[in-house]
């Protein structure tokens, strides 16, 4: 029989998980590359987690419903105008017997639009399983995601698309030369065609790695556990050894997260 038993109901488990989400902090990924419609893009991203309601399911499942993933993605685009617009050629212009030749205007070099920053929150729900284990000198109870959830994008995605559009059009007009105005129109039409769905398709593979291996740590203590901290030069720390640790979900009239431990002096 274990020496110590600690239990938390779903309300307390939700708060324990909230503490673990905050402790996870901001995760980063990238740099990476992707495609948004015809535009190639490089990106770096960061994400943090918060919220969600916990449903405890025996024997060891924690369902987290409506967890928020707040993301910030910095995207750089390269616009190759030769792939977006036909070449502009000034036709021959004649006065009486004198005509200028046709002059085709060269494309400007590819335009780099650096660091367009977009951010919003997506939500997801997923099952996690409890994983108590010893890592070096420490006991951990991890809550580890079972499978990759579907990300639900919010209404802010449309704003992100507008932010990208604004940055691309501004760059087109600033650096596109005589192609600038036509390029700006083409970009607007292209982004409208890409739409929110296209942007979600671009962001999905960027954000999914943040959740595909998502693990929260709800318990972390050294195996040599300081039961009473030191309190002066004559009162050293009182340690006990946690020789075994387990975590399960028990169902009675309430579903509870139950942590048990055996200790030795």
């Amino acid at each position, binding site marked *: *029989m*274990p*020496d*110590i*038993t*600690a*239990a*938390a*109901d779903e*309300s*307390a488990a939700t*708060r*324990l998980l909230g503490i673990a989400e905050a402790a996870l902090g901001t995760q980063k990924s990238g740099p990476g590359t992707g495609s948004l419609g015809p535009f190639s893009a490089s990106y770096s991203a960061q994400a943090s987690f918060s919220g969600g309601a916990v449903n405890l399911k025996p024997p060891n499942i924690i369902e987290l419903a409506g967890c928020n993933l707040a993301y910030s993605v910095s995207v750089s685009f390269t616009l190759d105008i030769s792939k977006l617009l036909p070449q502009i050629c000034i036709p021959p212009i004649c006065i009486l017997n004198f005509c200028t030749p046709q002059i085709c205007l060269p494309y400007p070099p590819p335009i780099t639009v650096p660091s367009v920053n977009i951010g919003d929150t997506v939500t997801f729900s997923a099952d996690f399983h409890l994983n108590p284990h010893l890592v070096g000198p420490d006991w951990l109870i991890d809550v580890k995601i079972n499978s990759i959830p579907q990300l639900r994008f919010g209404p802010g995605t449309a704003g992100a698309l507008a932010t990208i559009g604004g940055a691309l059009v501004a760059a087109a007009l600033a650096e596109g030369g005589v192609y600038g105005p036509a390029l700006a129109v083409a970009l607007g039409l292209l982004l409208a065609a890409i739409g929110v769905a296209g942007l979600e398709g671009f962001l999905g593979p960027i954000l999914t790695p943040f959740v595909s291996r998502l693990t929260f740590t709800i*318990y972390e*203590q050294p195996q040599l*556990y300081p*039961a*009473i*901290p030191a309190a002066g030069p*004559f*009162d*050293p*720390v*009182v*340690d*006990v050894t*946690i020789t075994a*640790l387990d975590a399960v979900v*028990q169902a*009675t*009239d*309430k579903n*509870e997260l*139950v*942590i048990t*431990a055996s*200790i*030795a*002096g």
Partner: protein
Amino acid sequence: MSLTQTNHVFASVTEQGLNTLLHATFTARPRYLNYGSSLFVKTTSVLATNMQPIPFPGVPGGIQWAVRFTIPTIDLFPPDAKSSTLPPGANQFTIKTSVTLTLGCMTFSAAPDNPTVQVSVNPIAFSLDVWARGELATTNAVVLQIDQVRMPQVLPGGLEQVLDCLIRMILQAAVSDAALPLTAISVGAFQLILQRGPLIDADQAEAWGDI
């Protein structure tokens, strides 16, 4: 019935676990069980606590003394057979220890050719088994609160009463230093805000609250 019942969190420690914690505490901090005046404990250390001698007229330097307890073991309700001397009732515990009282016995002598009084001190001691019964109390830690002490050795009535009271007072002071933080009874799983308990039942101490 759920463990948390009408509260959000629950923590419990078994009788065996509590004995492990008490043993670890008094092993790391033996001075909680060893006290003595300067003849026996020159200065406070991890091993022993220095106390003042008892001042008395004509006793140079005061009466030198020492008290030592063995590491107590605890029995939570319901009583084990070993606690038959003072079995714990509902929501109670019984601890078993032994106490050694030591007196620095002084003798005074004067030689015919030396008017200065010679003082010699000879430690004399006796040991008694002690049973103590009480409940758990909390401030923001779990504390053993002793209500009653019994020493099974047969003693004259008045002396037994005096020693019962003296040992109860000293033992209470000693075990009060071994207060267990609430996090200890959840091995750090969460910071327990106590709302109910700790109560003793089924050979374990239980507490309920929130985080």
